């Protein structure tokens, strides 16, 4: 392993904690260590800090502080949103609409509901990796309780038409329909593009701290006032009865500090990420043949690039890059099967070879131009080396030769 140089291009899996965030959190371990449910000074100090953080997280998405429920992460946020709303409604209705490109957590939750009798409609994302609002309309049934469509995909970064779907939901409500809720998983989008729950029009929105330079182990769910959901972790009055358990004060404080920084620095960060990403993609196009970019390139998160390298397979490329100090990912870092081709890339209609050869490069605020140059130097060599091994390569060449001959 090349120990001299490390380039982390896996910011969609997790981000390093911003030193300013660590600094904000640090007093809450040893000095201001109270339990936010304690009545005394130590508890009040912790409670005040949690509430400050709640206001910061709310501000990041244009919500009110009392609409934010703190949780242990994005997966728990999705669990509380989807299972919570569905359980609250299960007396009368049992249909939910989601997409084929959701994060594995949403996929897994929906599978579970499917097993316990729920009807699930999974909308296609087409070649561009974007769900169509019209498909939502077509899928709506009288007993639909929940629509859960992610804001931006974690593997290919495509941004979904949340506002259009919300408009549909509003239409339905205007027609007198009740008990139809709209959830969006904004774990990848938050901190990377501006979000406002009123513009988006969603009723529930999931966040995860560790995707925006805060530590792993904290997350939040926005629950619009009036949405009824069944608490999943029970046995305590914390978080307005929506999530039992002693609040993870330091993680929450860190989340708040990171949300504030994300809000203040979003424009700057996304410009920076996008500049590097675009430079990277231009370099790849220039230097490496037989690549396919996955996901609508005009409608993507600014920091993410997903590329299928033909003839070779993701794990080998990933480990080879790792040996050169470059960290990337194949499929979703939290995804389940992986020797199986990525379900998201498959959903775009790509064949198995392209799906297995898909690599995600995700940039972050600490990456530099030099990082990109280094990767653009290493990646072509590694791809070439692996392709030199590949029998698929030869077959393709052979086929092309034959085709060329046939054309003459």
């Amino acid at each position: 392993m090349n120990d001299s140089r490390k380039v982390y291009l896996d910011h969609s899996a997790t981000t390093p904690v911003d030193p300013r965030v660590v600094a904000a959190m640090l007093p809450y371990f040893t000095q201001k260590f109270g339990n936010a449910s304690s009545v005394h000074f130590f508890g009040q100090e912790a409670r005040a800090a949690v509430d400050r953080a709640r206001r910061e997280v709310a501000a990041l998405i244009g919500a009110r502080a009392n609409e934010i429920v703190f949780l242990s992460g994005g997966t728990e946020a999705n669990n509380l949103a989807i299972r919570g709303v569905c359980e609250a409604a299960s007396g009368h209705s049992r249909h939910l609409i989601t997409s084929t490109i959701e994060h594995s957590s949403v996929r897994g939750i929906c599978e579970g509901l499917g097993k316990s009798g729920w009807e699930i409609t999974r909308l296609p994302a087409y070649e561009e990796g974007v769900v169509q609002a019209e498909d939502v309309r077509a899928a709506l049934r009288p007993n639909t309780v929940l629509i859960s469509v992610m804001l931006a995909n974690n593997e290919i970064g495509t941004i979904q038409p949340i506002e259009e779907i919300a408009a549909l939901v509003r239409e339905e409500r205007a027609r007198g329909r009740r008990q139809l809720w709209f959830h969006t998983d904004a774990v990848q989008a938050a901190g990377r593009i501006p979000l406002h729950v009123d513009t988006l029009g969603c009723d529930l929105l999931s966040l995860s701290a560790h995707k925006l330079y805060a530590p792993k182990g904290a997350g939040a769910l926005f629950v619009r006032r009036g949405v009824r959901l069944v608490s999943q972790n029970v046995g305590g009055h914390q978080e307005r009865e929506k999530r039992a358990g002693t609040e993870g004060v330091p993680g929450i404080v860190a989340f708040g500090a990171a949300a504030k920084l994300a809000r203040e620095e979003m424009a700057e960060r996304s410009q920076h990420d996008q500049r590097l990403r675009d430079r990277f993609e231009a370099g790849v196009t220039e230097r490496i043949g037989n690549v396919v970019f996955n996901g609508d390139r005009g409608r993507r998160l600014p920091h993410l690039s997903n590329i299928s390298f033909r003839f070779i397979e993701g794990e080998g490329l990933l480990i080879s890059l790792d040996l050169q100090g470059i960290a990337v990912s194949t499929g979703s870092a939290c995804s389940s099967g992986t020797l199986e081709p990525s379900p998201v890339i498959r959903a775009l209609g790509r064949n198995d070879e392209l799906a297995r050869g898909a690599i995600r490069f995700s940039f972050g605020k600490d990456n530099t131009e030099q990082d990109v140059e280094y990767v653009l130097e290493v990646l072509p060599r590694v791809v070439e080396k692996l392709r030199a091994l590949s029998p698929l390569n030869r077959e393709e060449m052979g086929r092309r030769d034959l085709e060329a001959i046939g054309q003459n």
Partner: protein
Amino acid sequence: MPLWLLTLIALTYSEAFKDHLANPRNAGELANANAVGEETNPVCGDRLRLYLQVKAGRIEAARFLAYGCPPTLVCGSILTELIKGRSVEEATRLTRKDLLAALGGLPSRKQHAAALAIETLRAAIASV
């Protein structure tokens, strides 16, 4: 396979393994091969092709092509190293274990890669 298992597996790759992955030996086609074997793993779709140049019962040259997960690539590389210069008879006696020993072991979930390599070797030898 869950990704966390992949991580566990990656943790256990030996230095020899990483070296072969970074610098595969004897990669590519062999122009003057007189024996070829190819096998595919039906589970994961991994594929290994082995070219041999056999002269007077001795493997003068060996090259390979592989598609699939790193252990498959590495097994191809190591296999060619192990058989080059050996007699066909010696090569026939080569087992999965020899291969595993040469690459510093493999986690159990990846040992099928070694099995694929030995099968491919047998197929190539059979084609002489």
